[in-house]
C-alpha cells in the first residue's frame, strides 16, 4: 500500500493532480518521472520524513512499493532507536 503522505509528495514534485499509485508502479509509468524529477522526489521524501537514503538505495528502488517499504523500514529504525 502506498501511503497518502508519499503519494502527495510525488504528486507535488511531478505537478500531477492525481495518479493511482500501486506497489508495482514504476517510474516509466508515471508522466514526468525521469532521472531529474527522481532526484527531486528523493530529496523531497528525505526532507518530509526527515530520513536519509544511501546512494545504493536510490539506485536499487524499482517501484513505488519498494520506495514505501524503504521509507517504512527507515522510520521503524528511527523509532526503535536502531
Amino acid at each position, binding site marked *: 500500500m502506498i501511503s497518502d503522505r508519499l503519494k502527495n509528495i510525488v504528486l507535488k514534485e511531478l505537478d500531477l493532480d492525481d495518479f493511482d499509485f500501486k506497489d508495482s508502479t514504476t517510474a516509466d509509468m508515471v508522466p514526468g518521472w525521469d532521472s531529474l524529477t527522481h532526484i*527531486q522526489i528523493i*530529496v523531497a521524501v528525505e526532507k518530509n520524513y526527515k530520513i536519509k537514503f544511501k*546512494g545504493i538505495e536510490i539506485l536499487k528502488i524499482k517501484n513505488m512499493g519498494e520506495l514505501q517499504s524503504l521509507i517504512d523500514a527507515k522510520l521503524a529504525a528511527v523509532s526503535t532507536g536502531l
Partner: protein
Amino acid sequence: MNFYDLKSNLKKDFSNLKKVKVALLGDSSTQLLVKAIKGYGYEVGFNFDIFEADYDQIEMQALDLESELYQFNAEYVIIYQSSEKLLAKFYKLDNADKPLFADKHISSVSNLYQTITNKNKCKVIYLNFVETDDSVFGNYANKTGSSFLYQVRKINYELMNLAQKHKNLFICDVASLQNTLGAAFCTDPKIYITTDLIFSLDFLPVVAKNITDIILASAGVIKKCVIMDLDNTIWGGIIGDDGMENIQIGELGIGKSFTALQLWLKQLKQRGIILAVCSKNDENIAREPFEKHPDMILRLSDFAVFVANWNNKAENINYIRNILNIGFDSMVFLDDNPFERNLVKSLIPGITVPDLPEDPVDYLNYLRSCNLFETASYTAEDEQRTKQYQQEAQRAIVQRQYINEDEFLLSLNMTSQVKPFDKFNIPRVSQLTQRSNQFNLRTVRYSEEEITPLAKSDDYITICFTLEDKYGDYGLISVVILKKDHKSLFIDTWIMSCRVLKRGMEKFTLNKIVELARKNGLNEIVGEYIPTSKNALVKDHYHDLGFTKCKGDNNLWNLNVEAYTPYPVFISEKIPDTEKIS
C-alpha cells in the same frame, strides 16, 4: 526561495517580462541549474531565454565558430566548470606538471573568454571553484604548489585578476558561497554519485540568485541607497527613552552587533552607496549620538539626508526620494520593526525591505547573505556620491527661497566643462551608460571596451559634460554620443544624471550639439526615444526641446540646424586646461 518554488515559477506567464538571452555551458549536468535560473528570473522580472549546451561541450561550443552557441547569440554566456572535473584533470597529471596546473587552466579560461567575446558581443559569467581540500597533503597543502588545494586557490585568485583585466568577464563566486553555507548544504554526494548533479537542490537557488544578481547589475538594476531606522536598528535601545549614555553601541551590552553593522554601512558608503536616516524621533534627540557619542561609527557627515520626525515612514521615504532623485527600486530600507517594514513595503512599490532577524546579533550576517549591493562597475568617483547628495539637499532648501526660477538658477553660478571622451573619463562614461535608467533616451549600455573605439572613430562625436555650482561639484553628469550620417547627426546616446534636472542642462547640451553639427557641416539632428519601463521621464524630451516628429516612425524626431536659435542658459562653459573640442 527553494528549488520547488523556482520550478513552480516556470509555469507562470513570462510574456510581459524582459527577454534576456543566456547561454549555459557546463561540464556536468546543468538541467536543474537552467530551471533554477529561469525560475529566479521570474522573481526579478526577466524572461531568460536559455540555451543549454549539451553535456561537457564547453570547448566544442566556444571554439567552433559555427556552433549553436554563436547562432544563438546570447547576451550572457555562463560557464560552469566543476571542481570535481577540475580535480579529476589534476589527478591525471604527472607530478612535474602539477605546479603549472593553475596557470594552464587560467590560460584556457582566458582563451575561452577571448574567443567567445570576439565572436559575440556578450558578457561572460564564470563560476569559480569550490576550494576542495582533498587532504592528500594535510595542512602542508598550503606549503606546496603540488597540492590540489594550492592550485585551486591559485585559480580562484587568478580568475579575479583575469576579471579585472577584462571588463566583460564576471565571476560568480561559488567558492565564497560555499564558505558561508558549508559543504554539507551545497553538495549532496549521493546525488552527485548517482546522477552527476553537483549542486544540491538547496544550493541551486542560491547559485541562480547570484548569477541573476550579476545580470541585473550589468543591466543597471542596482541598489544606490540605504535608508535606516535608528532605535534598535543601528544602536540598541530607544534614544528618546534611554538617553544617549544608555544606548547599546561599542562595548555596552550587545553593542558590538550594532558597531559591526555601522562599520559595514560605513564601508558601503565608501563604496558609493548613499546613506539616509528615517526615524521616528525628535530630530535634535536623534542627532545627538551622531554628534556626541564616542562609540558611534557613523557620523552626520555620512548621511546624505537625515529625517527624524513623527510622520509616517512611507511619507518620509518619499521625501528622501524627492531629494535624491533615484528610483524606489534602488533603495533598501532597514528597520527592526516589522510593522514599519510592512507599512513601507505595502506603500512603496519596488523598495527592498530586508526582514531583519529578531536578534540584532544576526543582523549583519543576514544582510550580507542577501547580496543586495551587487554592482557591475566601481570607480574612484563613487566615494564622492554622499557629498554630492548632501549638496543637493542644501540646494533644495535654498531653491524654496527663490520665487523666480531663472533668478535661482543664475544664483547658482553654474559652470560646465565640455570634453570629448578620453581615457580618463571613459570609465565614468561607461558607468553612466550602465547605471542610468531614467534620463536615458535609448538605454544603450556600453562597456569601456566598446566606448574606446567610438571615441577614436571619425564617424562619431562624443561629448561629456561636468557641472559645478557654488555648492559643489557634481562631476561628470551627462554623456552624448553622436553618429554622423551623411547630412545629419544621429543622437545615439543622450544620458543625464537626474541629480542635475531642472538646471537647464538639457538646453545647454542641445546648444552644444547644434554647435558641433554646424562645425561638421551637418544640417539636421535626429533624435530617438526608445521607451523602457523606467525612462518615461524623457518621453517628451525632444518635443520639449523643439524637435519635430519624423513622419512614419513614432519615436524619431528631427531638428533643423540652420533655423535653431540657441536656448538661453544659466550655465557657462568652463574651458578645459588641455584642449578644446575641435
